[in-house]
């Protein structure tokens, strides 16, 4: 092996002194690096204090000091959070948030959401973070609001659904794919509830069905700011469906409706846009303020006008009740 190069130093930083010890070790061929030298090399090379993680008879400890020192962002893991409930280092965790477990290959935290929604209140996340003992298998019970990434469309359990015993959990570690994690979770709990409105931290996917259309679509309500945006998006989305004559995959239906025709129909009396709210009631879209709508909407349905009679009054009532 070539000698440890010191001059590969494009930006003028000096090498850590510890490497010499390492190169000595190497050139004298396989001698085991003693633990002491480990400690020395570690502490001299960086400011990492890995002593806490070495030579332990027990577990390395409840905090993850190495993570904090590595990460610039106040000890917060890259796309996830450390729950550092037992930290003794006093290292501030910056925006101390509970572990937001992403779902599937989704990335749970690349989300813009108001801070109020970050708290993992009541869900298994926060409970788990405080549990120090061995977690039971039920820790993998699905949170009713699994965090979703924008692309994912399937209901699934929390990503890091296994309970963080004493140690802070880290996103993506151990490296098990979400499908496997979710599968083990569901085989434990046999909980197959299908969550209709999957609200996440910044994602709000709801299914949109249209009477007569061959299949559902999904929209993320968070991508719209008002009813107008939503309805134009829906018009575009469903304009390919011929009303009353949908082939199996009428994505590019030959007799497809034009956008304007659909719009006419929607604005006319033939179809109305309705939604199912948290309580399971079907309401007309547009009656309540937008924010309230996104909060309570679980599912959308473009319904035939004839079926929508009688929805409006209920909506207003509910609105009043809430306020």
């Amino acid at each position: 092996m070539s000698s440890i190069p010191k001059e590969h130093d494009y930006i003028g930083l000096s090498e850590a002194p510890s490497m010499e010890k390492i190169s000595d070790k190497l050139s004298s061929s396989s001698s085991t690096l003693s633990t002491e030298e480990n400690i020395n090399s570690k502490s001299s090379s960086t400011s990492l204090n890995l002593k806490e993680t070495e030579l332990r008879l027990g577990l390395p400890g409840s905090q993850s000091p190495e993570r904090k020192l590595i990460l610039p962002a106040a000890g917060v893991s890259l796309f996830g959070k450390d729950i550092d409930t037992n930290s003794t280092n006093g290292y501030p965790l910056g925006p101390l948030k509970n572990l937001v477990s992403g779902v599937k290959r989704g990335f749970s935290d690349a989300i813009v959401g108001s801070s109020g929604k970050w708290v993992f209140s009541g869900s298994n996340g926060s409970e788990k973070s405080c549990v120090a003992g061995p977690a039971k298998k039920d820790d993998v019970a699905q949170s009713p609001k699994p965090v979703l990434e924008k692309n994912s469309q399937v209901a699934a359990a929390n990503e890091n659904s296994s309970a963080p015993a004493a140690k802070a959990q880290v996103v993506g570690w151990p490296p098990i794919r979400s499908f496997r994690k979710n599968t083990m979770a569901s085989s434990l709990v046999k909980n197959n509830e299908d969550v209709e409105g999957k609200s996440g931290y910044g994602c709000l996917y709801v299914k949109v069905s249209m009477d007569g259309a061959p299949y559902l679509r999904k929209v993320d309500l968070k991508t719209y700011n008002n009813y107008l945006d939503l309805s134009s998006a829906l018009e575009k989305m469903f304009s390919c469906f011929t009303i009353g004559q949908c082939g199996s995959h009428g994505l590019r239906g030959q007799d497809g409706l034009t956008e304007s025709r659909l719009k006419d129909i929607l604005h006319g009396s033939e179809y109305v846009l309705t939604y199912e709210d948290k309580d399971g009631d079907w309401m007309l879209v547009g009656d309540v303020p937008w924010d309230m709508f996104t909060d309570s909407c679980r599912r959308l349905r473009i319904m035939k006008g004839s079926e929508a009679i009688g929805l409006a009054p209920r909506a207003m009532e509910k609105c009043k009740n809430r306020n």
Partner: protein
Amino acid sequence: MITNKKPRSSDTDSNYMRDDRTEMSEDDDRSPPSDSIANGSCPTRTCTPGSGSGSGSGSSSIPEYSAPYPDRVLENVLENVLWFLTSRKDRNAASLVCRSWYRVEAMTRSDLFIGNCYAVSPERATSRFTRVRSVTLKGKPRFADFNLMPPNWGAHFAPWVSATAKAYPWLEKIHLKRMSVTDDDLALLAESFSGFKELVLVCCDGFGTSGLAAVASKCRQLKVLDLIESEVSDDEVDWIMCFPDTETCLESLIFDCVECLVDFDALERLVVRSPSLKKLRLNRFVSIGQLYRLMVRAPQLTHLGTGSFSPSEDVAQGELELDYVSAFAACKSLVCLSGFREIVPDCLPAIYPICANLTSLNFSYANISAEQLKPIISNCHKLQTFWVLDSICDEGLQAVATTCKELRELRVFPFDPREDIEGPVSEVGLQAISEGCRKLQSILYFCQRMTNAAVIAMSKNCPDLVVFRLCIMGRQRPDHVTGEPMDEGFGAIVMNCKKLTRLAVSGLLTDTAFAYIGKYGKIVRTLSVAFAGDSDMGLKYVLEGCPRLQKLEIRDSPFGDTALLSGLHHYYNMRFLWMSACRLSHQGCQQIAQALPHLVVEVIKHEDTVHTDDYADTLYMYRSLAGRRHDVPKFVSIL
């Protein structure tokens, strides 16, 4: 020892390479792409046929410099010959000979492999290769599987499907890994390729059962529909019912990852009218009683995924009385068994009749104990691939080691993937496997505790190891007997396993471990590092010492700009580098971007983090002929 490879002036060779093997993770070690097709490589060296074959005197009298008319006879000969070349390494070599060979090779390449969908644009690929029948695309880097990549990062299939729809209407096969595929994409696929035969989606997402329905109904020649560990949303469309009513060409139907109910009667009818069906992997919504019915209909199966392998809730009694043993016995060709998603261990004995024939057994969703495993595994003498949960404990692994002398691949997954629990498997199991399964080539082993001694033993007992992935789940755990770092164990692996090309390390590791890797890991192509190393030297050892390194993924390790810069000589030879939660500054990344124009340097930002300093959250960089991609989301900046 490190040869500084000069960029060879070839057009995107490295991006099109595919190994002979069908394994998707194969890499290439070609030189970097450089945009010099017509300019650099063989400017004036048109192909005067050295062999003289076929070149009539007529053509040689015409000066070739302007050469829009290649030597037709030669090209015909070449074409006939080059059709036989299947290995992409060979093909890339052939394409470098001269312009004529380049052209003919491009015309005769039928399998297009793109290891990184952003390394080349669809237009460019389709314009160079004109007669492609099969396209393989890989998208996101592997760490995206573990939530380390924000959603909507990219790897969209859409531009590829539209380009190939125009360029290759005769396309037969599409194989995608870690791509974002939408229902619209699938619908376009179904519409555009009338002779479409094979669709394989591995770790993909973005689509649902409606997309599957499109494929099922329109692709009348469909032989293979394989969905492997993909996320499929439930659009409430019964896609199984969308297969045509006539006899189908189906040979393989794999949908074990589809988390929604299918109509069983429709499925049964489909199986009945698919006489060529050899591979069937059911999802967990198929009960064991239903499985029975299917097996009776399809005794010719070679690969079976058993679904839940438990009785359905309502029809319990009837199901338990069925003669499962006979059903399995009747499947004389069965060699590969998987599923067992919600296994009732009492049902296990049903598979006894076929154990002796099995070459592949996947119990990785079956929570069974050593005692339950033993009667099964003791008959599996021919087993070569075994995936299992650690619920079988070290004792179960010992049983495997006793019987499975032909084992080539072992994967031991954790039933409970937490960090601080006791853990049922350990160095004992690893040691036993190493002693019993000498032909082992690939191992993935999750555990809570490990010793250097056991890893060293494996390095000596299993010299054929090509893939060694050890995941000690507790971060930075040392050897639990000696308290030392795991350096020596991994060092022994790279030292003794001369065929090793893929390595994943874990546990407490100092820079020494990386020094070993750099010193001995001369053919390592893929390296995964997490929570390891002390300083920049660790990464430097690897970048300077491993000339064949293609894919390097690192997370949460203290490597900084100095280390990053030490790899400048090598990055064009790599497919990608991923570094997240390390110590890279934006300046450092910028320097790389400036030094290497054909490298796309993405810095992926976690919006929510309070950035107290200038460290980059995630660096993902890859060579590319396409330059900056056009679908960059907001949280990604390309330097």
